[in-house]
């Protein structure tokens, strides 16, 4: 099964992060929550692989092994 990439994978990390925060800046708390939900769904569809998505759902919980 394909594994979730947990090592750096975005070439220009700072640039992406800046864009992400810029978008959030213009949103209220509620709008941001909706925006993030849409973003997650868009990214999840792009990944597609259920196994990878499950690993991502797990990873985001920051559980200690």
């Amino acid at each position, binding site marked *: 099964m394909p594994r979730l990439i947990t090592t750096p994978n975005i070439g220009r990390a700072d640039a992406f992060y800046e864009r992400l925060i810029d978008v959030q800046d213009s949103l209220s708390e509620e709008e941001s*929550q*909706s925006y993030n*939900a*849409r973003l*997650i*769904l*868009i990214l999840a*569809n792009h990944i597609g692989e259920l196994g990878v998505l499950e690993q991502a759902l797990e990873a985001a919980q920051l559980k200690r092994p």
Partner: protein
Amino acid sequence: MLQDRYSLAFKLYPYARSADQDKPKAARHPVIVMGAGPIGLATALDLGRQGVPVLVLDDHEGIGKGSRAICFSKRTLEIADRYGCGSAMLDKGVVWSVGKVFHDDRQVFEFNLLPEDGHRNPAFINLQQPYFERFLFEQIQTEIAKGAPIEIRGRNRVETVTPNADRVALTVQTPEGSYQLEADWLIGCDGANSPLRGMMGLDFEGRVFKDSFLIADIRMLADYPTERWFWFEPHFKSGASALMHRQPDDIWRIDFQIGWDADRKEELKEDNIRKRLDAMLGDDVEYELVWSSIYTFQCKRMEKFRHGRVIFAGDSAHQVSPFGARGANSGMQDVDNLGWKLGLVVQGKAPESLLDSYSEERVYGAEENIRNSTRSTDFITPKSKNSYCFRNAVLDLSERFEFARPFVNSGRLSVPCTYDGLSLNGSDAVTGPARSRVGSACPDAPVAGGYLLDMLGTEFVLLGLGMDVPKRQEIDGIIVKGITLDINDPSLELLRARYLGTAPQAVYLIRPDQHVAARWTTYDDNDVASALARACGKEELCLA
């Protein structure tokens, strides 16, 4: 003492004194069915048609009025066809296959349930539940006239049940006092609140959904298309969601989600219902309010459906939310599954343990239905702010992006259950299409001017595709009918696609409920005998 709990749409089996009430000792019956709802009636029909004597007891004298099931699935019609009343249902019902989903005032999704040709029955019909039950009842009368040993006793309320190792003892209340009965087998078809479950102290576990739904059936002449329309957060603000669906006789089912805290008494006042309806339909539309009620929904099931000589079927065994139409439709699949098994056991042709496979297969089916119905209900009535946020994210995206549309869940409509990997399954030796794999309900297909499912009938069948199979054989007391089809016949193209795929030939062993028991690429007497033994719960017997 015998107060009605509901008023009747059709009075069909008025109370009449039975000779059993005057007997000094409890009369013994092979099978007693408790409850004459759709599932009890269908059970009686299935058993009676096999010649198994069956007595149905119901505490009312006919079919309850009011608005419950309306959507009946293709599988249900196929089962009803086998019982002889499918075409009556189809003739009266409204055929539909397209559903549209709206968010606010925008369409976000559209589905078509049966984009495929070559099935005798449509994906769904809409038919009021009282009609559905009446067609079953009328078929019972037809079968009785032909000699089927079926009896229905109205105003006979089962009040106590005492299960024993070799029989079940019952006390039955009537307008003329109570009497005793005994049964070899008792089938509990007494609905979601099953008094029988209570009498036996059995659990019914699952989830209650914290929302209520106002259901109104109205009569109006309107030219809306015959489609299922569902709104999330409708622009007309009559509820958090709304559903509109056509039924026969110019009746429309309208359904509003009105919240857990709704004041039932207030909401059920005709003026208040009309306010919601007018907002939806427009002030100038005329209609008559035929029925209204407020429902809350649960997804629950019993841990197992067989408890010795007491067997549960339909809502008494499992309950789902109505989104997906999995209530009565799954109950019909219970009957389909139980009927032939109990028939073989009562006739001494299969061991009692075969009935455990009923519980195994239908618990599996109930799990699937509960899973689907729970997912739909969670989408329709999100239980937290976070879940609401994702729900609306899906709806907002769906309008623009195709990828989000499969997430939209206004009900995943009932399809037949495939018994994957369960005990009765034999070998699956054909690399054929997945849809006709072992455990699945046979897909229909056209054959010689008719349809395959009609040809299969109600016995075990060996279906030889491009290969000869014996016409009729009796194996260890069980009749197996053989059907050989010439697969080079050009009219069998759809059948080839559905049963062979790329395989050049195949033999299917098909159960009386038209589920596939085993399939092979060549015919072999021993293979057939052992798969048949397995499908009848006689595996050990066969090995010995």
